């Protein structure tokens, strides 16, 4: 039980998918405009993560290694379609708020990355807690960003207008605001960790700097270049 709690807390704090592993930023930046959207997206993401992690962990000995990525994608896509249908049927406002990013959970680096990194190597129950932890961590970060962006960008919270629109910083609710908030949040994290004596350098979860969470690490051009120069 202690190990399961550790895995859960790992996903929320030590290996937070958005801030530490820096994966899945597309949806994080786009959805964190409203708190309701963040909570909804977080819930959908958690559902997909938990279910796909469990199924992939259950099938990990059966799936051949060469075609594992397409198999993972099929499993994840099934659950995403399920979530899509449920949200479209019962929560129309959330469906409109999430837009294209709901079906894009399929190709979200977090889901595929966790399937590759964790679920394919651990038991079903461990994967359940990992999925849960990652999902909760994701929701937390998104909600934090959304709290600031919605309150100061649109003046409302969960749909209720708190600050009159004339006094809002409109840019926060738009694209540049998203990038800026994310950068500031990350800088805040670096500063906070430095205060506690832990040096942390956030690096992209994909690209030439770090491949910590990417499922396609062995095919990445950045890695190939590193191997080529041999240095």
């Amino acid at each position: 039980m202690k190990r399961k709690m550790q895995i859960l807390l790992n996903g929320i704090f030590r290996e937070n998918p958005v801030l530490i592993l820096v994966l899945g930023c597309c949806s994080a930046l786009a959805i964190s405009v409203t708190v309701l959207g963040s909570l909804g997206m977080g819930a959908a993401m958690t559902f997909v993560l938990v279910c796909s992690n469990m199924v992939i962990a259950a099938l990990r000995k059966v799936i051949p290694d060469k075609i594992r990525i397409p198999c993972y994608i099929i499993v994840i896509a099934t659950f995403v379609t399920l979530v899509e249908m449920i949200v479209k049927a019962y929560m129309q406002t959330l469906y409109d708020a999430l837009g294209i990013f709901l079906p894009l959970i399929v190709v979200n680096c977090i889901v595929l990355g966790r399937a590759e990194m964790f679920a394919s190597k651990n038991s079903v129950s461990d994967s359940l807690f990992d999925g849960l932890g990652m999902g909760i961590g994701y929701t937390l970060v998104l909600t934090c960003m959304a709290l600031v962006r919605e309150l100061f960008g649109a003046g409302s919270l969960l749909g209720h207008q708190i600050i009159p629109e004339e006094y809002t910083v409109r840019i926060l609710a738009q694209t540049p605001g998203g990038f800026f908030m994310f950068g500031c949040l990350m800088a805040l994290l670096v500063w906070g960790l430095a205060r506690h004596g832990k040096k942390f350098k956030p690096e992209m979860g994909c690209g030439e700097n770090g491949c910590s969470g990417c499922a396609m690490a062995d095919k990445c051009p950045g890695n190939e270049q590193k191997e080529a120069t041999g240095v």
Partner: protein
Amino acid sequence: MSGVISAIWVLCAIGAVCSLLLVVASKYMSVPVDEKFPAIRECLPGANCGACGYAGCDGYAKALAAGTEEKTNLCVPGADAAAAAIASVLGVEAQDVVEMRAYVRCNGDCEKSKHKYEYAGINNCFAANLLFQGEWACPNSCLGYGDCERICPSDAIHVYNGVARVDPVKCTGCGMCARQCPNHLIDLRRQVDPVIVRCSNTQNGATVRKACVNGCIGCKKCEKTCAHDAIHVVDNLARIDYDKCVGCGDCVGVCPVGVLQKL
């Protein structure tokens, strides 16, 4: 129910078509891979420096595997180890690799050389050279912004006090720094040639002296001292003929400015 059946059918059909397409493609469009190529490529260090004359290690390995290249000793950074490994893969006798080392033909550090102007542009040798050949008074000087340092795969060349210096222990002789220097100050010498001229300036002695205290003034003392006719002053600059130089170091002792160096 029919909706479910048709969904399952369509998914299976699309999956089957895609996998069939890929299987057929991978069978009929496969690129024949020569087995020798990966084995030879493994022997090479992977610096992709181009010293062998081919476009990177892949190019050299391909040529060797295809048989268009016979020489196994072209890889300078790999040295004898690489040549021996390649020879064993190809089943031929190993050839000796001539070990090369880079050296910088400039000794003008910050204390000894003067500036023409104060440079505040991009910290890049190429950029600095575009502006009247750099900020140093000598037109053939090391610009000191480290283009060579950044490209070296062996961490062998660094800029100390405004001039680049090569560490002969780490240098593998790949020649990437030589190609990078905008003033063409870096040359390759054989490891067995220890005496070098640390200047590239062809202006007369008085002009050189005003620009840099460490520059060659063309006094010809080295030429007169050399017992092997290996060093001559051409165009106000001492030049060593490495075919004749035996590395005795007599010229080094008589040089009044200290531009000759024995490593």
